[in-house]
């Protein structure tokens, strides 16, 4: 780990080389792993404890008699409905958001000389910097005027709008890398722009489409402010909001809260298992160096 290795000439990456010795980094790596995993471990084991068990055993000890009781409590408290609401909101917002962002990105790249499209593009870039909190009151007003308050649609529409800027940025950067000859040959064959977009650009952009889909789905699935402000009745609740109300409702029943937290997280963990690479590249898409 130390000076001994330093003299060994091995062909490895530069970072790897300065890091072999780096015990500060190494130690902090393991400490950070502990810090990250402890709450996650705790929430999962607690979700399998009986309430009585939770109060008497060590909080980090695994459950002595594992139970699914807490999951039943969560599900009996309308959890399935909240889950379904979250699915409706996420799918209902992500699919249109990605489709219209893709169309806009295609137009922006293909019509780069058009001043309208250039203006639209810089408008979207500005949009990256608009924080949701700053516009929540006018959005609330608009939703009331549209008579959509307390519906899932109220959450879906602003979610689409706030997904657009980053999606257009990522997708247009990707479409720009499609070789121009391919567009030319489509044109020679007499294909319309509409056809070229779906037949050529769409399949070639798939990796970026997956990235923005996953990224937006995650952001919307976890969204809290829009549901909090734009809905009211329990049957329009999405999961993050439901968790928050569970917390008040279950009070000291920590295992039941733990079970609902675990349940809301399962779909995301599954998504992570399937598409970790796309997800992480999506998270840094707008900002990487």
């Amino acid at each position: 780990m130390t000076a001994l290795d330093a003299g060994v000439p091995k062909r490895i990456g530069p970072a790897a080389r300065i890091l072999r010795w780096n015990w500060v980094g190494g130690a902090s790596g393991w400490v950070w792993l502990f810090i990250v995993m402890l709450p996650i471990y705790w929430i999962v084991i607690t979700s399998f404890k009986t309430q009585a068990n939770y109060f008497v055993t060590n909080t980090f000890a695994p459950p002595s008699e594992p139970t699914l009781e807490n999951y039943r409590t969560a599900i009996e408290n309308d959890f399935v409905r909240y889950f379904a609401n979250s699915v409706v909101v996420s799918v209902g917002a992500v699919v249109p958001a990605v489709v219209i962002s893709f169309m806009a990105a295609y137009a922006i790249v293909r019509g780069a000389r058009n001043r309208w499209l250039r203006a639209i593009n810089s408008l979207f870039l500005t949009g990256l910097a608009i924080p949701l909190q700053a516009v929540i009151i006018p959005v609330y007003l608009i939703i009331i005027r549209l008579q959509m308050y307390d519906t899932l649609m109220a959450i879906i529409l602003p979610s689409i709008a706030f997904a657009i800027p980053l999606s257009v940025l990522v997708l247009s950067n990707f479409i720009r890398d499609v070789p121009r000859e391919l567009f030319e040959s489509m044109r020679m064959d007499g294909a319309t722009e509409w056809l070229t977009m779906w037949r050529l650009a769409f399949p070639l952009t798939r990796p970026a489409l997956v990235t923005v889909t996953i990224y937006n789905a995650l952001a919307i699935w976890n969204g809290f402010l829009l549901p909090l402000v734009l809905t009211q009745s329990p049957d329009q609740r999405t999961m993050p909001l439901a968790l928050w109300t569970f917390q008040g409702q279950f009070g000291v029943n920590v295992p039941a809260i733990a079970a609902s937290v675990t349940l809301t997280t399962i779909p995301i963990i599954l998504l992570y298992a399937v598409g970790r690479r796309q997800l992480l590249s999506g998270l840094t898409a707008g900002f990487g160096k």
Partner: protein
Amino acid sequence: MTMLAPPAARVTALPAASRERGRSIVWMALPALVMFLAFGLVPLLGALALSFTTWDNISPIRYTGLTSWKAALSDPGLPHALGVTFEIMILSWLAQTPISILIGVFLAARKRYRGVLAVFYFVPLLLSSAAISITFKALLDPNFGIGSGLGISALNQDWLGDSTLAIGVLIFVVSWQFVPFHSLIYQNAVRQIPDALYEASQIDGAGRVRQFFSITLPQIKYTIITSSTLMVVGSLTFFDLIFVLTAGGPGDATRTLALEMYQKGFMANLMGPASCIAVILVLVGVVLAQLLRRLGGRGDESQMEGA
């Protein structure tokens, strides 16, 4: 990210035909434009407009000039919220930056076990702020939480009931949630440092620590600026986390601008003053982003294009 090269260079190479083509395909951008205008840009201007009105969420909105601004600016809650916001901003930057750089550099090495660790590191990025806050709230219970669990009585504190401790907890939870994101950025940056720099310095006899400070840190300078900008501007918009974890308490110890705005608008039904706070929130964000850009010495190059 390789796919995000600066767009400007390629635009110039486009054939003139694209100007004409542009006209025929402008409509393709319209659905996105309409949605973005309706629920993004118009509301942003709407916040400014509403700040000159009085609206209690029930009766009609009335234009009242500077009344709401006077009310908002004379409220002692505003300077307090600004103070708390800046306190959280600075402390969370101080906490996150060194940890993120360390972990980013650590992860940049292409070693398998670190790849495995990385899988776990990034899990906090996936969880909702609500879930994270609820977990920590339960875990920090003074009687049944972390202190008794680890057998360390010093951890048996009323974490969220004491003003100073509550801020500390908040900084910790913020770091827990966002360090993975920033270490991801640093990991990418460190991997792009040219091999030759390290080789040359090795020949010159530079030690490892020296290499870190003389090569790695200067080379990731712009990344530090980018990451800091995201941290600083992002901290203005912490809402879910604080709302669920402390609800601004104890008392008003953690009531930031965003919470103050929510409180004013949706709890006290003072939409006018709340809109003033929203405008202040945007202004603070823009000013900070500009300052940090100057600091980076990138002149007029936009943060977004630099992405």
